């Protein structure tokens, strides 16, 4: 059985029914979503299932969508099957006022570092993480710098003409 995108989608829908949704092929990688409280169930299934075997967490990051009211923060998991080099992407959305997401660090050791980074820059609260403190920025920082809450550039500058920057 080759690990095609259709097979992965059928397998997930057979197990989780309507709890997995929005399957699209995004930059050649199968991308789908699940409600935030389901993230560990889906990740564990992807990890443990003998046919799927997504045992490697390539990357974990967060995205801020200021326009998605009530689910402003997304956590993105990039998973890989080492044997077939198949990659998939899982997204969960969480409200910015209470950004609680269950930690994946018990499933993937890599997630320990990556979740600290996502917390540092986006303020995602990974419930159950063994050491959720800042990792890249100074400890005294009291905001999350990569949230889209700040003006893009110094508003008083007139020398940065958009034409010169291809915008």
């Amino acid at each position, binding site marked *: 059985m080759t690990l095609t995108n259709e097979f992965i989608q059928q397998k997930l829908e057979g197990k989780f029914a309507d709890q997995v949704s929005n399957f699209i092929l995004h930059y050649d990688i199968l991308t789908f979503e699940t409600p935030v409280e389901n993230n560990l169930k889906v990740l564990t299934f992807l990890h443990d299932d003998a046919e799927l075997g997504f045992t490697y967490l390539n990357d974990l990051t967060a995205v801020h969508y200021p326009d998605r009211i009530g689910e402003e923060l997304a956590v993105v998991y990039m998973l890989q099957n080492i044997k077939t080099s198949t990659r998939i992407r899982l997204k969960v959305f969480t409200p910015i006022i209470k950004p609680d997401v269950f930690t994946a660090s018990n499933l993937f050791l890599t997630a320990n570092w990556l979740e600290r980074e996502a917390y540092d820059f986006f303020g995602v609260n990974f419930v159950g993480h063994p050491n959720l403190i800042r990792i890249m920025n100074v400890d005294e920082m009291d905001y999350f710098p990569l949230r889209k809450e700040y003006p*893009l550039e110094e508003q008083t500058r007139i020398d940065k003409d958009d034409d010169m920057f291809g915008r």
Partner: protein
Amino acid sequence: MTNTEQQSFPGQIHELPSGGIVLSKLDDIINWARSNSLWPLTFATSCCGIEYMSVAGAKYDFSRFGFEVARASPRQADVIIIAGTIVNKMAPVLKRLYDQMGDPKYVIAMGACAISGGPFFYNTYSVVKGADHVIPVDVYVAGCPPRPEALLHALISLQEKIKSGLTREQIKTAKV
């Protein structure tokens, strides 16, 4: 004195029938000795470090000027070349390295980031806008990153600065 001229030993030769005697000042000789054996600290925080490595390599070769003994410990280093961006988290580390260096010690700020924050001057949440906010700087090298020749020029400028007089500490404690 310009960089192209041969830098001679300080003092005059007093000719005698049996040969010459060099007359000089001890301070000048100490400065001459110091300036020709500056040991840099192995310290690089971003792309300027690549140019720094290039200067250390065979093609540009800063050992021609007495800089070849790059030290991994600040306790043994004379000059710290700040080759790269200093972020807020790195600032206390840089200060500590500087404090651990023994006197006399010298600082070269290499590249736009170390001089002023450079391309990160505006709209940054993490970059120190100039390493001289943290430690005093003797020589600034412009560039992003500077050419190896520019760093060599800065190293030679530092040597001239040392040869020309007192260290910062000597000036501070000098009795007028």
